[in-house]
């Protein structure tokens, strides 16, 4: 059975350093959809064990009020990641993010360790989901097979910093250097029916640039964006919140399709637009997004 959380709403995933208890104690007050509790790059090498200790107790003790708790483990090229997985699974995390994923085998290696930890800590099999961060040209090229690698995998994310280094370019702020990767990844993700997330925007003083980038990735079809500061959350949620006219239209589409289906009619018009069953899922998604964003109070 598919984990019911696999396709949950993930517009924002906020990075939080596990080394800093003050950061991980109550990030839910900013209402991100997911938080990403980091054991990897943000944590100093000699603080890795302390970060795991904080992570375990935070997962055990803190009620994150429905915010998804994703743990970023250390890379498979380190001797840290296996213990990271045990700690995260024992603590009760919802998902694990694999950094620097390059192949489907990377995902399966971690999946195996997760399954082992689930047995060890008596968690239901399949309760921990997975996502893969693609941080290299090879990882991006292999996006399709990575997306198909595991039933646990709910999505892939572009990690722009490392990817740009691998591509031997610098980040321009225009997004031109990520065009290929973004387009390739979103197509692969949709083909495999998993989600796709965009990289972080680190210049907190350029909120206009951030907004522009979120508008672009939203229109490209990304499910959400990685976030480094709470102030970015409302911007993403606003852009991902369906507009009133879209909600009204989606509502009509769903109701009409339900009604016309019963009457045996396949194609009809709503507000002058030709509508058929192909519109159904899109309209449902709009309503689901509107509900999650708190702007839909209807009965659908």
């Amino acid at each position, binding site marked *: 059975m598919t984990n019911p959380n696999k396709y949950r709403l993930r517009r924002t995933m906020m990075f939080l350093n596990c080394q800093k208890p003050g950061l991980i104690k*109550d990030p839910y*007050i*900013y209402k991100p959809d997911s938080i990403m509790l980091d054991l990897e790059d943000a944590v100093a090498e000699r603080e890795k064990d302390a970060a795991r200790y904080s992570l375990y107790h935070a997962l055990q003790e803190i*009620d994150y009020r429905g915010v998804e708790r994703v743990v970023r483990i250390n890379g498979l090229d380190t001797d840290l990641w296996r213990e990271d997985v045990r700690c995260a699974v024992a603590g009760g995390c919802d998902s694990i993010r694999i950094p620097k994923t390059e192949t489907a085998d990377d995902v399966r290696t971690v999946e195996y360790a997760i399954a082992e930890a689930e047995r060890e800590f008596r968690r239901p099999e399949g309760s921990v989901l997975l996502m893969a961060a693609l941080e290299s040209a090879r990882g991006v090229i292999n996006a399709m097979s990575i997306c198909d690698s595991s039933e646990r995998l709910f999505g892939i994310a572009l990690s722009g910093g490392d990817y740009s280094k691998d591509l031997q370019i610098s980040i321009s702020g225009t997004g031109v250097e990520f065009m290929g990767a973004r387009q390739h990844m979103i197509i692969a993700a949709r083909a495999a029916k998993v989600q796709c997330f965009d990289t972080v925007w680190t210049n*907190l003083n350029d909120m206009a640039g951030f907004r522009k980038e979120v508008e672009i990735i939203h229109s490209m079809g990304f499910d959400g964006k990685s976030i480094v500061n*709470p*102030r970015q959350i409302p911007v993403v949620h606003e852009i991902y919140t369906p507009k009133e006219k879209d909600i009204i239209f989606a509502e009509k589409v769903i109701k009409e399709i339900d009604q016309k289906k019963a009457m045996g009619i396949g194609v009809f018009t709503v507000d002058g637009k030709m509508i058929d069953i192909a519109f159904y899922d899109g309209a449902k998604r709009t309503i689901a997004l509107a509900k999650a964003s708190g702007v839909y109070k209807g009965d659908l």
Partner: protein
Amino acid sequence: MINAVGRDIPDEILEITGKEPFQGNFYLDDKPMTKVGPTIRPIMNNKKSKLVASIREALIKCEAHDGMTVSFHHHFRDGDLIVNMVMKEIHDMGFKDITICATSLGKAHDPLVPMIEDGTITRIESSGVRGRIGEAISQGKLQGLAIMRSHGGRVRALTTGEAHVDIAFIGAPTSDDYGNLRGIGGKADCGVLSYAIVDGNHADHCVAITDCLVPYPNFPAHISQTKVDYVCVVDEIGVPSKIASGAAKPTTDQRKLLMAQYCTDVVVNTPWFKDGFSYQTGVGGASIASTQYLAEIMRDRNIHMGFGVGGLTKAMCQLLDDGMARVMLDVQDFDLDAVHNLKNVNHHRIPAGVYANPLNKGAVVNKLDYVVLASLEVDVHFNCNVVVGSDGMITGAQGGHPDTAQGAKCAIVICPLLQGRIPAICTDVTTVTTPGESIDVVVTDYGVAVNPARQDILQALREADCVPLRTIEELRDTAYSIVGEPDKVEFEDRIVGIIEARDGTIIDVVRQIKEIKQPAVYKKKGRRRANG
């Protein structure tokens, strides 16, 4: 005797002070009262000069004596040099048993502690004390009682004669040789002299201290020559950078910004937010951010502020300059922008009594729609504590908190749920300084609680569905679930201070803090350092 906020005010304290326990906000409304005036020495002789060569000379001429009360204002904030300068002279002259009646005392006045210890200063009346003086009072070093009263309460006390000042020392950025005082035009401008105006009216003697003597007449005077006995010129009265310390960069702290957003949402979704509304806010990061958010919405909806009041900041003065506010009423300036903004013809100085005295014929605070305040602690009865830290140590000031909270139609307190490991929303505040009946809304980072007495506000916010509404008990429970319920702070029996309500009744008492027995290892270290 148990007062209206449930605090036990011992009979002996009521006896010593001649005061009543707090009986509710409107206890003295419409009750007859008599004002008292000072005993002054008229200056009819036109040959007499008011200039004195030194503070010592002023003290002698004003008949300084043991047991006298001297007063000061706090417009120079942490940059104040006057209090220490005058008290050093009083100390050097050997006077004892002095009462300081200040509008506020802060860290700048730490040097007074040895004078408390040696009996020079035996009583302190202030809107609060920060820094080492607060610690000294809490440790029981002050021989007499400390009396904490709000800005409005201080004017009331001087007007009714409950407090009497023998010599008022008024630091003035500029003065002429006949004692016309202004808050601007000098080396250490503080903009207004609002808190000191009552001292000019009610002290027996009044000494102006300035570092910038200007030609007569220094007009328009903020305090008139008719109130001033002597003028003393000194090298320096204040440190400008510390006077304008409110001019901080806008906060980037997301927690404060979140609370600011909630606060603005509360304001714009309650019935008084319409053209001509009135508003007061403080100097904290969340308050200033909230004013900026509010300004955006005012522009969008074309709503103008009728008047803003209070300690003013750049954010508030900007509204005036942009035509978004009609009038600013100024009792204190927190930054240089506010000082410079006094040039605006709609930016008016008002005396502290006009601002907040509860026992005049109606203060400006009574006309407030909104006030945005902070608090160290808020309890489930909505009582606030802005004076005593959760460790039992006196560490803050009432300022205008009780005055504006009572006056405003919608008093909003912004308070993070946790102050480090201390729950700021709790079952009972350490000390009640503003009664819960004055507080309408509490904004925290975990949600917003509305006083159940204000069903109108609750209804408006429910309908607007703009902020996460919680009960105050839910907020308290959340706080306790995160950091646990702390044990009560332990105090000695001795009462070191009283907290006056606005009307002069006693709302709470402050007891001496119990010394925490330190482990021997620290004591040893201390001794070694002292010997070495």
